[in-house]
């Protein structure tokens, strides 16, 4: 009987641990990085705890790596605004501008959702890159490339697609998803999130992915 109660208590403890909020903190910071919390702006620093509702704002030279405890990490690239909408068992972040790398390892039954404009990217353990591209029509494009695992992407208009490792998509003006395909430029993405292992900044310039009709001059 005692053993049964002990086992149930252990199960409850594990369940509580699973459902509890994710301990998010700043793991690495370089250059100008601010945290907007409520109505105030705080300068980001190593080890700083983050709470749901915080907005991470990196400057032109700023870069931050956010630890989601044992669940994974998010690398916030320069000129990026990322809000931490939810840090419950189900983590939801919203990319308002710029680019992020997401690496999710153990979600312990929870989920990770990244919102970018009209797009939602949901994963259960993977590594992927999300970034705003150029605004050609009404809304900016959103590029999403997967390094490991599978990312399910859906739009507010109901369009949906699964993007596998090695593939990428472009969400055109928040409306249309291009078929998943390998993009050669993703070979050069810097997925590293460990400063002790080398450079963490990714210097991909998405502007160069767009062909400029003004540049087509072949005679």
């Amino acid at each position, binding site marked *: 009987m005692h053993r049964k109660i002990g086992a149930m208590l252990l199960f409850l403890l594990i369940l509580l641990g699973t459902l509890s909020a994710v301990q998010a903190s700043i793991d690495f910071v370089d250059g100008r990085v601010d945290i907007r919390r409520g109505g105030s702006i705080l300068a980001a620093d190593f080890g700083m705890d983050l709470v749901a509702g915080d907005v991470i704002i990196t400057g032109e030279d700023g870069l931050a790596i956010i630890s989601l405890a044992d669940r994974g990490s998010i690398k916030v690239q320069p000129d990026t605004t990322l809000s931490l909408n939810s840090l419950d068992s189900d983590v939801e972040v919203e990319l308002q501008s710029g680019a992020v790398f997401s690496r999710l390892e153990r979600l312990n039954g929870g989920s990770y959702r990244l919102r970018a404009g009209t797009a939602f990217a949901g994963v259960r353990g993977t590594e992927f890159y999300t970034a705003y591209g150029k605004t050609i029509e009404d809304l900016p494009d959103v590029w999403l490339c997967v390094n490991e695992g599978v990312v399910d992407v859906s739009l507010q208009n109901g369009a949906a697609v699964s993007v596998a490792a090695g593939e990428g998509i472009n969400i*055109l003006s928040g409306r249309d998803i291009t078929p998943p395909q390998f993009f050669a430029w993703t070979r050069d993405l810097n997925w590293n999130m460990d400063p002790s292992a080398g450079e963490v900044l990714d210097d991909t310039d998405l502007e160069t992915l767009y062909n400029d*009709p*003004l540049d087509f001059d072949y005679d």
Partner: protein
Amino acid sequence: MTDHSKTRRSLGRNGNRRSKFTLLLVWMIFQALWPLMAQENPALRGGLRVLVTPDGGDLDPFLEARTEFPGTEGLLGFSALTAGAYYRFHPNLKGGLFYRLQFGALHNADWIKNGSGEWVWADTLGRPESVLIADLSPRFLLDFLPGRNWVFFLKNRYELNLYNGDQALYIRPGLTYTAFRYRRPLYGLGIHYAAGIGLNFGEHLIYTHQIYADGLYHLSDRFKLQMQLSWNRHNYAGVYMGSPFRFAERFIKAEFAAILIPEL
């Protein structure tokens, strides 16, 4: 979860609109060019061109080989090798400097009388000519037009022929439309007019007129195919051994080009 249906439907509608628009554009170009081409019963010529222009960002090297096949007039042909580079000073302005080695070019002084007293072109096929070229071309995106990706070019080119000292200025306004799919260029269509002005030779203010339409198919970012159909008029005038001459040569030329853009 894989549901492309909505995406496909949406992109399909865009594709249909683009196809109809392209057909309309081709029809309009044809309608504009046909009367000019048909009225003067011109000769026919063909050309081939290979261009290698590595993608160097703002600075694009340029290496081109081109040849013109003997036309229905029985000309010997023209061939040229051009090397240089374009530099993009501003999104709306490109400039270039080039050197061209050409064979088979025909000038006023090459219209001569043979032993029988007939007017003929001199054989210039084996005669090398060096030409220095400076190019300055503003271009503007006319995104208020339907289809958005319209570009107006004004190509201005100065040429100095070191063989005979001839200096010419070519002014070429043009309008091109590029169709994109998934933000990648698919094909382009253009219509242009080029006027050649002899700065220190000839009796005509404009010694060449060229009206042409071209199509550019973007097989990939690195390889493109181009077809150009042009109506040409060259005015010649001069004096050969006391005999003055003045005439216009008219021809239609179809030129195919392969364009390679290796990554630097």
